[in-house]
């Protein structure tokens, strides 16, 4: 019972409250550091609840943050860092899943809903227009309707 509540709480809170990136991790090169921060927001702390390593206080997150900075210092591009992390930890580490057969539904749903919605509305409009035509519109009104749609 108590455990459940703690699990819930961890979810409410997202994490234990403490600072994430530590001063000793920060790279001297500001451009690299900024890139490291951006990358960190895309990587999940795998022992936390849906939290990026940038926000997390877990030791694992710290290890990965340092690893990201090491790769960047070694000259990796952003994509190379992400690829390296995925190769090492699997897709689970990416907070923005890659498009693929398993995530197609996830990525396409918003577009599909909008398209279906628009099509449905167009059908509705057409049906309405027929009914309205039956109610005898003046040619002028009809013209305006056509212009508007």
């Amino acid at each position, binding site marked *: 019972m108590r455990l459940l509540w703690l699990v*819930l709480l961890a979810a409410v809170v997202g994490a234990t409250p403490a600072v994430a990136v530590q*001063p000793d991790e920060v790279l001297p090169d500001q451009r690299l550091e900024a890139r490291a921060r951006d990358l960190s927001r895309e990587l999940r702390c795998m022992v936390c*609840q849906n939290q990026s390593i940038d926000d997390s206080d877990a030791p694992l997150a710290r290890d990965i943050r340092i690893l990201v900075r090491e790769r960047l210092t070694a000259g990796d591009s952003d994509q190379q860092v992400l690829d390296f992390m995925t190769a090492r930890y699997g897709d689970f580490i990416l907070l923005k899943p890659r498009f693929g057969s398993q995530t197609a539904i996830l990525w396409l749903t918003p577009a599909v809903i909008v398209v279906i919605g628009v099509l449905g509305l167009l059908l509705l409009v057409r049906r309405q227009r027929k009914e309205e035509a039956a109610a005898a519109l003046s040619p002028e009104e009809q013209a305006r309707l056509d212009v508007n749609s």
Partner: protein
Amino acid sequence: MIAELGHYALILALGLALIQSCIPILGARTQDPALMSVAGPSALAQFGFVAVAFAALTTCYVISDFTVANVFENSHSAMPLLYKITSVWGNHEGSMLLWVLILSLFGALVARFGSNLPMTLRANVLAVQSWIATAFYLFILITSNPFLRLPQAPAEGRDLNPILQDIGLAIHPPFLYLGYVGFSITFSFAIAALLEGRIDAAWARWVRPWTLAAWVFLTLGIAMGSYWAYYELGWGGWWFWDPVENASFMPWLAGTALLHSAVVMEKRNALKVWTILLAILAFSLSLMGTFLVRSGVLTSVHAFANDPTRGVFILVILATFIGGALALYAWRAPMLKQGGLFAPISREGALIFNNLFLTTACATIFIGTLYPLALETLTGTKISVGAPFFNMTFVPLFIPLLVVVPFGPMLAWKRGDLLGVAQRLLGALAVAVIAIAVTFTIAGQGSLFAAFAIGLAFYVMVGALTDLAERTNLFREPATSSFTRARGLPRSVWGTALAHFGLGVALLGVVCETKWGEERIAAMKPGQTVSISGYDITFDGIVRLDGPNYQELRGKFTVRSGGVVFEIMEPSKRSFPSRETSTTEAALMTRKLSQVYISLGDPSSDGSIAVRIYHKPLVLLIWLGAVVMALGGALSFSDRRLRVGAPKPASAKTALQPAE
């Protein structure tokens, strides 16, 4: 004794709920006024009993009765009285009790102020409300009873989780629940309408105040939770796209859509079938918000294994209500007559546009939140869906919505004049262009998107004001005449304008904070200074203090600007021995609408301490915008046309109210 009293009262409430679940519906079927009139007194009495149960639990907390397991697990005798009271709902069992308290309160309100409803509708609504109540009473009594005693009384409690010992989180759940549960009324109205197979514009008029009230509370609840996360979690974020946040945001989106479609239904007698569906969805999402969070399934599939009875019970409740409601909808909705023809370019068209994008946004969050869970269950593949996904999908869906917002209220019903409205919005557009130009000039390269977002915010804000100006003939007539017109405008018009204005305000805050917020992370020793956004912040040192139930490490920082001392900021870190956890208490310095934010990290052996300092430009606008939106909702709620509980002559009580 007190705990047993509460337990007993809850059982009595269950008994009443069972009666109220069947008798009034039977009465409505057989047109028997005596049976139907059972609903009213029963709803009031139910509220009475749940209030007794809630008061009993609260008393146990106040007197620190650790023989009650729930009190033992979540309270501590040294805690301040305020937190003793708020711990009542700072745990699973107690929060469920709060849930049913609000549920029965709303039922009682319908019973008390619903005298202008047709008798059968009122009976059906209260019966459906009671179905929900029954399910929850059973859930509490069987799986989550807060009144259970411990065989041996411990001397001291385990304390409330320190992170919850905060005024922000103390009032966040009640507001959220008022929102969630408020949608239960709309849901009950929808089910009642489906049962009766009849629905008209009057239905929308009765439902709208409840939807508005729920929406206002939910808006405030979400904003409060966001502000709490901002200052309590110590890294200055205010929205994380966390499953729990999403769970509260989805009902909000559905509720916002419902609010708008109900307008169409009320004014134009159209979109009935859709409005009913939204009413069902808004509450279904609220149920999910309550339960999926409670079950822990969102964070881990394995959470169910911790307590299978509870998990299964939750699934059964969800399946029954959501599945049942949707099945009933599929069966009965085709019988409802559609009405009200309109052209695509019209107020109705704009509101449908609003609904399309709000529901798509809601569906996107829904699938993003549940997809990892579904995928893992079906294929075993573990993926993560986090903030980057939501930002990438949600933002493009919201931009078209914001563009259309000012058009909506200005388009005419049935058939609008797009060009005419666009002309009247030229002023708003001009302001937007100026805002973009100014932002781009000042901020320079790399700020194009942010500049456009700021332009959009100004366009939304000025657009909302334009609607008011148009309606009052401002600048076209003498000021006095405009003033008279302004006074004559319905409050719902002011409410709409205010809520839309608030949306722009919030957007402005979001953009400025995200784009121009600054951050310094440093290991600071006493005497060191860090500069951020024109402020010089000197670390003066650290002291150890004792609180009522914690020890505190408090840092002292002096903020100077141009050599002048601005403020002393004192962020702290508290550790609670009873739970062996600690919290960060960030220090905030508010200058106009911007804030400087300092939070402490861990001290290190060389005498320095990790410090995070942020400058958050215009950050307060984010929550201020939400508050303005809620105010708009409240203003609309107070519109005479919608006011619930307007006193009626005694004779009207028994008469069936004709649909207006």
